[in-house]
Every structure is written in C-alpha cells, then in structure tokens.
C-alpha cells in the first residue's frame, strides 16, 4: 500500500482546541430563551396613532417585536417605559428588522389622536407604533400578555374634570419572529435597555 500516514502537526491540535473551546464557550454563554407566551393562536385587531388598523401578532410575524405597555395619563412610570423603548431602538441603531410598539391599556382615553400627541411629546421615532383599540379587545390583549391594571384613584380637578389613575404591570417584552414572547423585563427600570439590547443582539446575529 502506498498510503502516506497523515501527519498531524501539533499546531493543528492547538488550533482545533482553540476552535472547540470557542464554540463551547459561545454555546455556554448563549441564553436559553424559553417561550413565555405563544401568541400564535391569538389575533387582536388594534389601531395605531395614525388610525391604521393593526392585527397582532399577524402583522409582525417574521420580525422581532419589542413592546412596552403604557397609558398617557401616567405622569411617572410610563414616561420611563417610553424612554426605555426609545433608548433600546437608538442603541440598536434603529434596526429595520425589529418592530417597536407601545400598547395602551387605557383605550377609553388613549385615542389615536392622543397617542399621536404622546409620540410628539416624547419625540418618538416614526417607526415606533403606539397601539390602542376597542376596550374589550385591548382587555383581551392585556390578559393574553398578563398585563394587569386596576383603577387606583379618581379625583376631580379644580377645573371640575374627573380624572382617574391606574395601577399597572411594569413590563417590556420581546416577541420572536415565530410569534412567541421570549423576554420579559420590568419596563421602567434604568438597566433594562442595555439588557434587552444585549439579548436582541445575540438573537439577531
């Protein structure tokens, strides 16, 4: 037989070892994203700030969706959630393949016009949509993503107008292109944008 023995140089072993270590290290560092909620069986007809009809999650299938839950009469926490959404979008470099949503859980007051003004106040990018809808539809949507709300106080202003405030869940979620909610964080916390950006960068790559 004229077969030459394969000579494996020690340097190849080293290279193989480094490669395998790198692969193992990467897989160890990869987060295991479990499905928190599968939205595939759901279909919610909502409307955005420009009165354009939106079907959730159908219209967003094939893309990552980052969504926060707010109401515009909220003076303290919801502005933080909104600012975190803005920061996530900015830090990701305004990606085309990620959708950003702010969903109102106060559809009675948060009409498309109000949401449009809210976007202006917070200088929200045009590719971020704020959604509202029929109260029963919005309630079903909130139930499906486990966002809870309860009226906290009702007060009459000096001008005689009755206003109310809501206690609410504080969440920003990420839905994957298959329509599964895979990430859920406290929406108003200052550390949230960097965590979600890291997660999305590892997922999108």
């Amino acid at each position, binding site marked *: 037989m004229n077969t030459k023995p394969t000579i494996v140089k020690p340097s190849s072993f080293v290279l193989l070892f480094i490669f395998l270590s790198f692969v193992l290290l990467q897989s160890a560092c990869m987060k295991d994203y479990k499905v928190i909620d599968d939205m595939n069986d759901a279909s919610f007809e909502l409307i955005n700030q420009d009165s354009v009809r939106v079907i959730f999650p159908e219209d967003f299938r094939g893309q990552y969706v980052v969504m926060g839950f707010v109401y*515009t*009469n*909220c*003076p*303290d*926490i919801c*502005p*933080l959630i909104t600012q975190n959404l803005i920061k996530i979008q900015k830090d990701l470099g305004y990606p085309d393949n990620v959708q950003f949503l702010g969903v109102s859980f106060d559809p009675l007051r948060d009409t498309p016009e109000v949401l449009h*003004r*809210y976007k*202006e*106040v917070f200088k929200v990018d045009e590719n971020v949509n704020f959604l509202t809808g029929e109260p029963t539809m919005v309630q079903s949507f909130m139930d499906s993503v486990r966002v*809870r709300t*309860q009226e*906290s*106080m009702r*007060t009459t*202003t*000096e*001008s005689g*107008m009755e*206003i109310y*405030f809501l*206690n*609410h*869940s*504080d969440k920003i979620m990420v839905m994957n292109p298959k329509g599964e909610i895979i990430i859920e964080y406290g929406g*108003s916390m200052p550390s949230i944008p960097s965590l979600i950006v890291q997660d999305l960068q590892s997922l999108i790559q």
Partner: protein
Amino acid sequence: MNNQSLLFSSASARTKKTHILLMVLISISLGLTLGCNTKADRPDSALEEQGNLADSSITTSEWSISLNNAWARPTKAGMMSAAYFTMRNNGSVPDSLVRVSSNASKDVQIHLSYMNDGIMVMEEQPFVAIQPSEQIPFQPGGYHIMIIQPSMDMNEGDMISLSLFFNSGMIIEQTIQVGNPAM
C-alpha cells in the same frame, strides 16, 4: 310620711344625685378621651389643618429646607407632567411637605410610585415628613409632584414655578427647568 318612707325617699334622692354625678363624670372623661385621641391618633387629619398647627415659634435659623436638581418632565397642555428634585433638611427641626402649587396647573399633587405584588402603584401622599439632616429624593419611580393637565405646553428649556408649603407654615418658592438636565 313615716320614718321609713322618709328614709326611703332620702335614699332615693341620694341615688339620683349619685347617678347624675356619675353621668357628668363619665361625660367629662369621655370628652377628654375622645379629644385626646383626635390629636394623637390622626396625624393625617392634623396635618391637613396645617393653618392651626403651624409652629410660629420656629425661627429661620432653625428651619432650612432646600431643593436641588429640580426639573419637570416636558409635556403638552392638557397632558401630564411630573416634577422632581432632592429635598434636604439642613435645619434643626423636623417638618412636613403638605401641599404644592404651580403656575403650570391648578391641580398639583404629591404622589409616590412603588411596586406592590408585581403591580406599579401610585398613591397620593397627604404629606411627606422630613427630619433634620434627612435628604429625600423626589425621582422617577418614587416620590414625585404630579402636575395634572397643565394649562400650557411645557417645552424643554421652559421654566415653571413651584411653591412648596410646609406644615410649619414655611414656603419654598422656586423656578424649575422643564427637561431633565442630567439627560
């Protein structure tokens, strides 16, 4: 009238007098007890009557509360805003912030946001007490001054006025900037 009936009638009169005396004593002690409880057990209501409780004996050398890093969230007329600052008591007497007013809105309230059982809760505060050397941050997600439906647009860089009324009767009047200078 025989002696027995006289004795009986005088005993009955004594009992009557004793009853009246007892009732008067019970009324006085009840009145005193209720009066004391009203003051001791209901600090909220006492604070609401700040005019009656304002301590005129406090001197300006004892009282020194300051606001630092004050700012208000930009918004449009008719929407919502909030003001934030750090309140510090540099004086030697405790006090309580009991009311806030602003030129931006007729409806200004003191609120506290906090997490309770997974729900973000916001509650109006009747007062915020501050002890000597204490520093209380009014910041997003905590204590804040809610400016309800301002009558004007509050744009970044605008100035609005805040007046803070304390239980002692002292008032801080300050002009604060719209927009977070730290951002």
